[in-house]
């Protein structure tokens, strides 16, 4: 069945079209709206976005493939992104990643079988002064310790 945007997503798309200079400029936010609704930005999602914005399909794919925050593979309900860059590394990011891997039986780039968690090591998140840091979905977590990570993960449903 062909995908369709929900009424809520349509509302957000129309708001984006009002804010930006032309339709093309709304593509980047609209790809996020699509990802929020459908999950990974698959070929079917790109079809839908191209159709909705009346942009060439190839154009949508070129943009979606350029940016790393449009996820092309399935991800968990809680997508954990731990910073691996220098300041976080010096503050122990590797131990945080190793702990999450062990705790959730998960590799970087993987999803737990129940679809609850996925893990990714990412580049600098601009929280170097409160390293180590991570983002889960849209929430920042800073000054991480193993205990703090346990508490955060145990409280997600």
């Amino acid at each position: 069945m062909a995908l369709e945007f929900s009424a809520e997503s349509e509302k957000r798309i129309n708001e984006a079209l009002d804010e930006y200079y032309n339709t093309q400029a709304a593509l980047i936010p609209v790809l996020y709206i699509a990802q929020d609704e459908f999950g990974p930005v698959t070929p079917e999602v790109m079809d839908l976005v191209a159709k909705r914005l009346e942009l060439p399909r190839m154009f949508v794919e070129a943009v979606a493939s350029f940016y790393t925050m449009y996820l092309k593979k399935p991800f968990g309900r809680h997508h954990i992104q731990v910073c691996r860059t220098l300041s976080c590394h010096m503050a122990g990011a590797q131990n945080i990643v190793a702990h999450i891997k062990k705790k959730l039986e998960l590799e970087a780039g993987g999803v737990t079988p129940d679809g609850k968690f996925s893990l990714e090591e990412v580049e600098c998140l601009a929280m170097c002064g409160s390293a180590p840091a991570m983002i889960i979905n849209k929430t920042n977590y800073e000054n991480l310790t193993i205990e703090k990570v346990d508490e955060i993960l145990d409280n997600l449903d």
Partner: protein
Amino acid sequence: MSELVLSKRFNTPDSHLLSTYEADGGYQAARKALDMTPEEVVEEVKKANLRGRGGAGFPAGIKWSFMPKDDGKPHFLCVNADEGEPGTFKDRSLMRFDPHQLLEGIIIGCHAIRAEYSYIYVRGEMWDEKEILWNAIRELRAKNYLGKGIFGTKNNLHIAVCTGAGAYVCGEETAMINSIEGKRGEPRLKPPFPAQVGAFGMPTTVNNVETISNIPHILKNGGEWFASLGVEKDGGTRMYGVSGPVKNPGLFERPQGYNLKKLIFEDAGGMLDGRELKAVIPGGSSCPVLKADEIDIPHNYDSLRDAGSMAGSAGVIVLPEDACAVKAMANLAQFYAHESCGQCTPCREGTHWLNLLIQRIEAGQGKMEDIDQLLQTCKNMMGSTICPLSDAAAMPMEAFVRKFRDEFEEHVRLGRCPRDGRL
């Protein structure tokens, strides 16, 4: 303690609200500026010796003066909030704790360059900051501080937040313009410069968040006052970020030209757990590293250039003596290899090969000639690409190899990392 300008309200409750900002004299500078001619505003900013805070340090007033007059085209002010240079975390706080300071700066800047559109390009991961800015914009729209005929003048102004989606290269101004247009964030050839052909083909100025956040203060207190806060040719204060194993990491607003050693050992509390200082990256990961005995210098553009490095974004990364220099640079090499957009061969191939070579050396499988190969590769990467990402990857590598060559050679001789990859 020196005078706080940009971060004065950071600890005020509800510092992000319009009511808080106006109670502290907010938007008076915008009213004042809108009664001046654009040329008068530009002159005031020139007098302030305000240099761009994104990293390149170009004088902001002069940049504004490149914008055409009476060309009949719409003009754009794009604000660069794509903060992604490792070690840098100042713009996040400026948006989070004082969004109206930035927005007032935009209103004044748009008047100066005759722009009716402004886009704040915020990196994708900064979800909270995007929402804070949108809320602040809605507050302004409700009071007709934005829209048509703002503050009872003939000026119209539309401000919107644009979002990045995970690409470091979009911090480069022409890549950012492409991304704002909804395209792949690939840098454009210059010329034409954005002031001639920028966003949507129209004259455009791109300024960093911190640069624009200074503007209301310059209009309120005068360019000469602002210039007097800093050093010659470099006015105002700077949001210095200190990260790494220091007792008190974080943001410190201090005058331009603040002593780098003092910043680390007094303001940031010195080294953690009695560790010794090995080296300092003074302005974000792209700036050549300084050894511990090279940091007793003022931190500003000209002084750091004379020391063979750069002030960059003032994100100071501290490396301890027990950390492996090869591992530190290998961490950054992986970053640049990941972030090259791939348009230019020297950068696409160069960042990749630098990463492979240094990872091999760090793993104890390198050869002596690999070390010279690193330097040769750096040489071929510099000055030969559309944007500075290639140079940004090569410059720190070249400095690490030159200053810590003994450590690189030790890895090859021993066939392992003498510090077991510790950072």
